């Protein structure tokens, strides 16, 4: 066992997969430069010393180009792990991600494979509107992309390893405030979620949610940092005699419907929490599907706690207002109980 932050756990996952399979390589900006940062959040720090600059491949600032290159390499037999320093820059590569990455296999009649991973840091960290967005929902909408959202170091390692071995494109969304709470590159408000990681290899299958806390009155579904806000809210509610069940789906595509449906059937109430804004967020899809398939089990309207429909504001009081919190979750639950 070794204590690791999420950044360290991701790094170990990449290291193990690169040792195991020589087809795996990393591609992105500022990921392997000697004396550099190891990516914006240190995930690839030191890996170029071990694997060399050919397998930890630094690119010019050319997102559309390097994602397209990762796609081509994947199709031709490699297993790239691409890194967007901030998720917001993924929009520069939207064409490659949406028109090519998600569709080439289908367009080929199932003949080509795109075993590739795209790592996407998300979440607001006092940097204003263009370094802050939670963009899972854009890709949740696109058929052909798997989506993982690890909230713990254990999950980060196991899910990333599974992603590398998947024969489909996988986007891994990582929250900037969860990477680690130490070192020069940590962000303001970073949470310490270090965890003991087993020495033995393990994988976490996609589509398997984790019940973070059992409860009987209301089901909360949350990912990434919102898992922690939800657990904090559940602790507050517990004291007031309300028992909340907190579920972290861990992957959004595929989604563990069984786990969520079973929970809703038990509690009769559902609340979904994400840092992305309301309209068109993945929470809307979960709400709609539960309403379609488990309407008879619901004792109250389904609720969502999400950011308001505005860009992410910079100033701390406004940013704090923007980001969903335990307080808002408690308030929302009290409205349906």
């Amino acid at each position, binding site marked *: 066992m070794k204590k690791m932050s999420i950044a360290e756990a991701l790094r170990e996952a990449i290291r193990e997969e690169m040792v195991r399979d020589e087809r795996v390589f990393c591609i992105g*900006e*500022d990921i392997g*430069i*000697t*004396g*550099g*940062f190891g990516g914006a959040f240190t995930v690839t720090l030191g890996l170029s010393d071990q694997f060399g600059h050919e397998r930890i491949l*630094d*690119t*010019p*600032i*050319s*997102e*559309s*180009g390097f994602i397209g290159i990762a796609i081509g390499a994947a199709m031709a037999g490699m297993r790239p792990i691409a890194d967007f320093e901030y998720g*917001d*820059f993924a*929009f*520069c590569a939207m064409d490659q991600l949406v028109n090519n990455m998600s569709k080439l296999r289908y367009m080929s009649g199932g003949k080509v494979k795109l075993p590739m991973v795209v790592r996407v840091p998300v979440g607001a*960290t*006092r*940097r*204003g*509107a*263009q*370094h802050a967005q939670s963009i899972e929902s854009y890709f949740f909408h696109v058929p052909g992309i798997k989506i993982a959202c690890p909230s713990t170091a254990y999950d980060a390692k196991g899910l990333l390893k599974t992603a590398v071995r998947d024969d489909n494109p996988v986007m891994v969304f990582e929250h900037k405030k969860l990477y680690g709470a130490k070192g*020069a*590159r940590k962000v*303001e408000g970073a949470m310490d979620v270090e965890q003991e990681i087993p020495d033995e290899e393990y994988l976490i299958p996609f589509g398997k949610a984790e019940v973070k806390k059992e409860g009987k009155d209301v089901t909360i579904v949350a990912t990434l940092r919102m898992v922690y806000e939800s657990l904090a809210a559940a602790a507050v509610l517990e004291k007031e005699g309300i028992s909340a069940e907190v579920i972290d789906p861990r992957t959004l595509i595929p989604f563990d419907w069984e786990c969520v449906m079973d929970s809703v059937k038990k509690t009769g109430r559902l609340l979904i929490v994400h840092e992305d804004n309301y309209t068109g967020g993945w929470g809307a899809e979960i709400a709609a599907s539960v309403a379609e398939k488990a309407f008879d089990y619901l004792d109250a309207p389904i609720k969502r706690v999400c950011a*308001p*429909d*505005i*860009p992410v*504001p*910079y*100033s*701390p*009081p*406004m*940013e*704090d*207002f*923007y980001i969903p919190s335990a307080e808002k979750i408690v308030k929302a639950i009290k409205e349906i109980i």
Partner: protein
Amino acid sequence: MENIPRDKLLGIYECMLRIREFENKIYYLFIDGFIPGTIHLYQGQEAVAAGVCANLRKDDVITSTHRPHGHAIAKGVPSGSLMAEIFGKSTGCCKGKGGSMHVGDIDVGMPPAIAIVAGGIPVAAGMALAFKFQKKNSVAVSFFGEGATNEGVFHETLNMASLWNLPVVYICENNLYAASTHIEKAFKITDIAKRADAYGMPGRTVDGNDAVAVYSAAKEAVEQARAGKGPSLLVCNTYRHGGHSRGDACTYRPKGEKEEWLKKDPLIIMENMLLEAKLLSADGIKAMKEKAEQEMIEASEFAKASPLPAPEQALEDLWA
């Protein structure tokens, strides 16, 4: 230099001093915890913003980047509202909605700085297109780093700007590094001005630490654009004295490199030039420095004393 009026030269020098003082102040205010998030400072590149913007009128516009403080000062955003914005205060030029990477004030011809690398390049061309439609003789200037020229949108836009003869000037600040990535690691051909040939526009390279050289080269480019003779690309070779952003110890730079560049500090070059030409005395320089220092002390006091926005103000300003 002989044919540049004294006032112009002093104005450029003053602008450089103000930027330097502003950034020095921000550096310490950040360490002291007054500034949220991150900062990308401009010390070392002052000659570019000051030299270029000395050619611009209030009705000309600029686009800027994640490193925008110097451009904002040079284009005329008041230092108090600039600093207040970086503090996240409601008196800031974007009411606290923008922050360090998005400062700007359209009232002086600067829309919010765009922190997506190369994002401002087409936007500048768009403003230039509007000026052309409107038969105004205003000019748009786009500032960006050498790293930005490897984004596809650089190629797309420079072609259109040239094709349509737009009144836009492209200023590439080549400070050798894009974050930790040295230009040699990101370019096959490091002479970026050569790329202008591919678009059929003039491409020039100047010493970006020599404010007079920047001013003169930018003057030609701006006049050409204003006269309806189309865009150009001006590469200014320079160096950022500090890290890329907060918490960057620059361990990717070779030893001694910064020291060499510090000898070519644009402020020293300008001071020596002014002294040699007897346009300013040592006392005169001292007085100007004190004035700039005083201005930035006042700006920081204004920022500190200003109120934070109310949380709910986040909901305002989305729609026109």
